[in-house]
């Protein structure tokens, strides 16, 4: 890595803060859905299906999130 002597500002504070909140809310909602989903799946008696759907959802999110950032 080569830090140059010229320094550039990031995005504006508000834009960064909004992006942070958006990312945080998405991640938090994944955790909440996973927590509720595991309990509900067992409560409803469809544990295998429920866990599979949630599992694919989270792996999909992971792939999309990293993929979008990969070329930035």
């Amino acid at each position: 890595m080569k830090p140059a002597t010229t320094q550039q500002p990031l995005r504006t504070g508000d834009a960064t803060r909004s992006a942070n909140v958006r990312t945080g809310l998405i991640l938090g909602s994944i955790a909440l859905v996973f927590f509720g989903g595991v309990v509900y799946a067992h409560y409803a008696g469809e544990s295998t299906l429920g866990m599979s759907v949630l599992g694919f959802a989270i792996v999909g999110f992971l792939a999309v999130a990293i993929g979008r950032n990969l070329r930035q």
Partner: protein
Amino acid sequence: MSSIPHDRVADPAAGHGYGHDDHAHHPSGIMRWITTTNHKDIGTLYLWFSFIMFIAGGCLALTIRTELFQPGLQIVEPEFFNSLTTLHGLIMIFGAIMPAAVGFANWQVPLMIGAPDMAFARMNNWSFWLLPFAASLLIGSFFVPGGAAAGGWTLYAPLSVEAGMGMDLTIFAVHIMGASSIMGSINIITTILNLRAPGMTLMKMPLFVWTWLITAYLLIAVMPVLAGAVTMLLTDRHFGTSFFNAAGGGDPVMFQHIFWFFGHPEVYIMILPSFGIVSTIIPTFSRKPLFGYASMVYATSSIAILSFIVWAHHMFTVGMPAAGQLFFMYATMLIAIPTGVKVFNWLATMWRGSMTFETPMLFAIGFIFLFTMGGFTGLVLAITPVDIQLQDTYYVVAHFHYVLVAGSLFAFFGGVYYWIPKWAGRMYNETLGKWHFWLSMIFFNITFFPMHFLGLAGMPRRVPDYAVQFTDWNQVATVGAFGFGLSQLVFLYVVLDCIRNGKPAPARPWEGADTLEWTLPSPAPYHTFETPPHVA
């Protein structure tokens, strides 16, 4: 990744533009630590907390080893012995290893990506301060009627459904620590995705940051599953549900499935940050770029994804169809491929490098040696018919201590020695650091290598008494355990001596270090990278 051209960075000794300490207005005394939102302060809190819990969990381990010094019951009752093994596991995993990894992330991730702090600074404070309360619940459970949880750190139903009040405290502690981990993970992912310095693409990030990004995703995926499992346990215990109660139509085996859906990725949650630390140390002291950077990233991702589909190898003896056994056996063996890629890349990085063997490098090499041994015994245990023979024997205890003590712990020690000049602004005593390494290395092997023999001979784990034929190796293991425990006092002395009396550290004490934190003066100023550097 190439080295930082130091003629292009302002004079560190003069306090260049990336570090700003002149406006570090913050409370002093204890209020500084309680109210802090600074990632460096919080990283320090995490690291000291984890060391205290490491000592607490270590004391439980030494009590276990004392009881096992000879056959028969000596110093503790069998029920209390079960509580010791349970709490030793919970404290070491949730109180020592995981917080230590988060401590490293707090200190290093913002510094390595050129961010001014973590994305959610107040939540960062909250994430840490939940932990002492959870730890108090865990340790306090020893003093409630019925004693602490005694069903093993896995909290298997139906034993945990029928246990005393200590189990309730453990469940609440797990909930709190889980919430702390999830908040910490959200913070780390958001910081890495949104606050990287201009020019630092994902594929330019130091590998430590990559491993933590993937670890944080794993945490968000599996900690809610554990929380769900223990919530169902709680409702089974107190609210009349029958999730895991066969008499009420529930399924106790389902608890094991859910637990290990969390539990196996948890193993990688504990080891991936260590991979990142080792991947930082080895190129530095080999004075070469990391061999196969991209393949390291893909190997780490592969390990994380595979960790979701191998959980049932922990429960071959529970009973499952042959197709299930074969699937989980082969899937588990598949993990050896990306892990092998990593080990190969570390060795290839060292190959023909200008290597020197300072303490961080010794711990990194020790890590590779011992973790590879633990990995091999893991492959042995992945073979279903072998696992059925070795299930719940000391062979398993030896295996996971080689992975987690020699793996996680050795890498963390290496990480502390590597970064403490930047944290404290002072150099540690190299001679004592090497003493710490060699004592730890020797006593670790004296403690845990004989456990392979004990397990192969059939000694079961989690028992306070054993057949006389196992005495000799148990005595060796106990002597080794006390030696290993006392060796950690050397580490404590080295750290305290470094903070108080160490020689001033230069901005870049390691010749081969090339990540952004080394462009800052030592110690790193309270506020850093408020104006981000541009990474070419």
